[in-house]
């Protein structure tokens, strides 16, 4: 059987169909089916990654079928290095999330079965959104993804889950509508210039006045900035991450938010090269603000889940900075960062979720001295924290440093300010580490149990990936580099030459 993206998307959907046929009462079977499906999807994705020709800059695994011919809409999918890496991350994270959150569907409004159907549908849509090469198809997945997440937060979350779910949905829909307006405008323009189409490649050759281009760019960019999220469009994230179950949060921050930064590369940069150049300085400023602002806010949080959400805002600032630095280091670094952030946030969120479900609270002050009580859990949290603060030798260091170096060669001031973020990162990680893990064991924590075998199995691959890619990121970089360089060269940028060596 040849591997194809359609097959990859059909697998989770098939799993969801099987799940819906199962009886509601048998929760264990539902979990097993979900785990099996996600594992098979992960295997297929790895198979695709192996077959992927990394030196070929053309789209691969291309499929195109007419969907709504009267509007020129196609079901068109394909892969380049960037989307491959993100699909790989999605497919590998999914079974980890299922396994790690084995019991998190219990407190929900609906059955366990429904929970996993939603997870599987979300996985399928996430793969679709990264694979789509038709703008309309992308948009459909982009918006449809909100639905399972809405129900996952609102139905299975904790605390103010309904309010958070609504805030998330409305905020995202608002951005999505701006994007829809831009997409329709693109469609109309393409009709005026030789045939209606939604094909990304064809649309990138449209002629537009700079005003039109700027407006359409903003329509896309604001949607992605909300999704990413970039300061000042970030306030939905802490609420959503706080209310969602840990597994959902991982998918939300690790996968869903990447659609924003991925979209910036795939759509903002490719479709609107001139507008990109116009807005780059503004976006660089926003990215730098995100980095510093997110870090300060993380330091000021009292709740561990909100803290992690704010660290992510800081990290997304780095990703955006790398994308708009327009250097190969910044671009490859940003894509690698997306991958690495998925795993380091997954580690943080999963362990924080285990901690708070054991303690019955996610307030940092309620913990204390966990290192002596639950050493494995404490170590996992510490390790995840080190990954988040980009300790050299762990994967996030490679990407963060690439972003900083790539930015420095073109925008030294932005890079310098962003680098201060690494000191703040040490603060926002070490403060909760000290409060929760160190010090005397405070009342209420004496009898917490350490990680179970299932939880250890779930966290091990995450830690292994973080460590492995810290020392040996080449397998991913070799896939990303050609695509990243291609994007930049299409925009007419090349890496700045060393300043001291040209003249002398």
């Amino acid at each position, binding site marked *: 059987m040849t591997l194809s993206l359609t097959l990859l998307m059909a697998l989770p959907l098939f799993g969801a169909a099987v799940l819906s046929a199962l009886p509601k009462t048998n929760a264990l079977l539902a979990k097993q089916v979900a785990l099996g499906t996600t594992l098979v999807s992960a295997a297929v994705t790895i198979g695709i990654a192996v077959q992927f020709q990394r030196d070929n800059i053309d789209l691969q695994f291309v499929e195109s079928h007419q969907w709504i011919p009267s509007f020129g809409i196609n079901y068109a999918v394909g892969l380049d290095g960037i989307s491959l890496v993100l699909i790989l991350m999605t497919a590998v994270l999914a079974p980890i999330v299922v396994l790690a959150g084995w019991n998190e569907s219990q407190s929900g409004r609906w059955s366990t079965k429904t929970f996993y159907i939603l997870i599987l549908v979300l996985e399928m849509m996430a793969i679709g959104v990264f694979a789509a090469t038709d703008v309309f198809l992308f948009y459909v997945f982009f918006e449809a993804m909100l639905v399972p997440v809405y129900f996952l937060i609102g139905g299975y979350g904790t605390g103010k889950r309904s309010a958070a779910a609504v805030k998330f949905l409305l905020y995202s829909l608002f951005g999505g509508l701006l994007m829809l307006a831009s997409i329709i405008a693109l469609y109309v323009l393409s009709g005026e210039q030789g045939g209606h189409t939604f094909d990304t490649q064809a649309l990138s050759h449209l002629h537009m006045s700079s005003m039109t281009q700027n407006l359409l760019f903003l329509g896309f960019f604001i949607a992605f900035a909300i999704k990413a999220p970039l300061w000042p469009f970030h306030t939905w994230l802490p609420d959503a991450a706080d209310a969602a179950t840990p597994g959902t949060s991982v998918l939300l921050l690790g996968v869903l938010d990447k659609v924003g930064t991925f979209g910036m590369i795939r759509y903002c940069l490719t479709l609107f090269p001139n507008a990109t150049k116009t807005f780059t300085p503004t976006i660089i400023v926003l990215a730098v603000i995100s980095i510093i*602002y997110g870090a300060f*806010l993380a330091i000021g*949080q009292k709740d561990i889940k909100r803290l992690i959400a704010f660290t992510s805002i800081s990290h997304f600032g780095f990703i955006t900075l790398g994308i708009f630095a327009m250097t190969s280091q910044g671009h490859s670094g940003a894509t690698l960062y997306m991958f690495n952030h998925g795993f380091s946030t997954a580690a943080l969120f999963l362990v924080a979720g285990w901690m708070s479900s054991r303690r019955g609270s996610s307030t940092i002050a309620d913990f204390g001295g966990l290192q002596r009580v639950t050493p494995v859990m404490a170590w996992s949290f510490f390790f995840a924290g080190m990954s988040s603060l980009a300790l050299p030798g762990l994967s996030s260091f490679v990407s963060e440093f690439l972003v900083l170096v790539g930015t420095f*060669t073109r925008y030294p001031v932005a890079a310098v300010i962003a680098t201060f973020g690494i000191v703040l990162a040490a603060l926002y990680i070490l403060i909760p580490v000290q409060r929760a893990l160190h010090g005397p064991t405070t009342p209420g924590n004496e009898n917490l149990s350490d990680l179970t075998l299932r939880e250890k199995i779930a966290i091990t691959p995450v830690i292994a990936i973080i460590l492995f890619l810290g020392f040996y990121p080449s397998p991913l970089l070799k896939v990303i*580099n050609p695509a990243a360089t291609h994007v930049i060269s299409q925009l007419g940028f090349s*890496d700045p*030459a060393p300043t001291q060596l040209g003249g002398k």
Partner: protein
Amino acid sequence: MLINNGLVYLIALPLAGAAILLLAGRRSDKWGHILATLLSAASFSVGLLQLSQMLARPTGQRAVEQKLFEWISVGTFKVDAGLMLDQLSICFVLLITGVGTLIHIYSISYMSHDHDRRRFFAYLNLFIAAMLLLVLGNSYLNLYVGWEGVGLASYLLIGFWNQKPAYATASKKAFIMNRVGDMGLSFAIMIAFASLGTFSFAGIKEAAPHASTASLTAIGIMLLVAATGKSAQFPLQAWLGDAMAGPTPVSALIHAATMVTAGVYLITRSNFIFDAAPTAQLLVIIVGAITLLFGAVIGTAKDDIKKALAASTMSQIGYMILGAGLGPVGYAFAIMHLLTHGFFKAGMFLGAGSVMHGMDDEVNMRKYGNLRKFMPITFVTFGLGYLAILGVPPFAGFYSKDKIIETAFNAGGIRGLLIGSAALLGAGLTAFYMTRVMILTFTGAPRWDEKAHPHESPILMWLPMAILAIGSVSSGFLLSRGNALVNWLAPLFAEHAEKAEVLKPVVVTSLALLMVVIGVVIAFMKYSRGEVSSVAPEDVSALTKIVRRDLLQDDFNEAVFMRTGQGITNTLVKTDELVIDGLVRGVGSAALGSAGALRKSQTGFVRSYAAWILLGAVVLVAAIWLVTL
């Protein structure tokens, strides 16, 4: 450069130890410490083997390299996981693994009562591996990995007993201040890449002559920032005193002999940058001079034996940095002082550990006294270290420190006079505070608590102390015999013309010895005559009070950085909640509010709807009529 595929074992052996001990957990409690010690010793053996091979090669081909794999490669940003061993790094390798192994042995006994001894050894092995990576990396980025790796190991070891909140805070403080320094190293790499297109040692060495002074100065200053963080130099010195929260063997290995000297390594390794950037070099000298006095002054008022030694470490590293700032003529002396300091300071720290071991973990020297009777071996080994740090001939410090002072004077002009005098003054202060430590600890009347039962430490503890004491006695003589170390390192550094001697070596030595004698005499006058109170007297001058508070370093940091940071954080948290999220919620409540207002028009009375319809129809007709008119 020659290829040698054995270098990786230097790092791999201790790294494997750390991994095994951490993963095996409690199962390795019984044998973990032995494994860790053996692996450290094995790494030392590999180092010795490398040294013997290196000695067998002619001068020009002594450096060897090993490329492990391609680490990062994006565009022109290419860096291999590559190791390099040359005359400079072999000194460090032997110091790290040699002293490291001794301290492993010492810790077997010192930590034998600790429930988590295995974890301690895992961290020690991790540290050795990271430190070796630091000195073996062949580019600044490889060095950076080791650089933060030792920071992590140091964090873990300072906070080894982190169940005590103060210790946990100390470890956090060390990590964060180190990160500030690390930022400097990041900047240095970025500037190097942006301006020179490379950040490997070999690459920059090649490109440096063609580069502008401005960019080299910028790189140099950033490297200096990195060095101040790791080596506890002014203005990033405040963490070192608190770092004494870690178990004493850690203080000996990491916070005296090896990790804190990484800054000196960095500057010496970057000699080709600093040689071409006089401004950066001057800053190095200034930082070194300030710190050597700063540390020495703090040391005079410390009652905690470990903190007194920590202040001394800070000051001695100040000497090394000063030496390294003097350029090609000073690098070798900085390294020599680094090596001799490694012996005598580690020895003294282990001595302090031995004293604490016998005194029920008491660190306050005012509660010691007359311990030489009860701990003769500790007294003798500590005493030899004491003589070495004072610079009494023929002990180790005499050879290394005098050379730095002499070179400082030879820098010429007012600059030479200033830094030379600072170094001389530092020597006097060193003599004073070290004599104070000796007197308070080993002589006088006992001022112990009732619980204390001083006794000599077991052989596993005193043997490393004895070996280090031998080093304290002989290393200076051996390293400077026939200029051995200077000649050994010479191929790495730029050639330098012999500077005119401002002061003859004999004069410098006499001056230094004079300062030492003055310091010792004052200390004897103050502490040896009459009783020493077992609590620190309160009726002291304002200056003493300030010195006791570490010259207000923490107060300054707290007022300027911590309070500001907290202020910013609180303001931003409020802003986010009220302004940014407020705007978002504002949109929501505006929608709700306007909907509420509009809802009032829906009265539910059919007749009012009918009236509205009628009105609408009339308006519509009127509009059509007006338009068509």
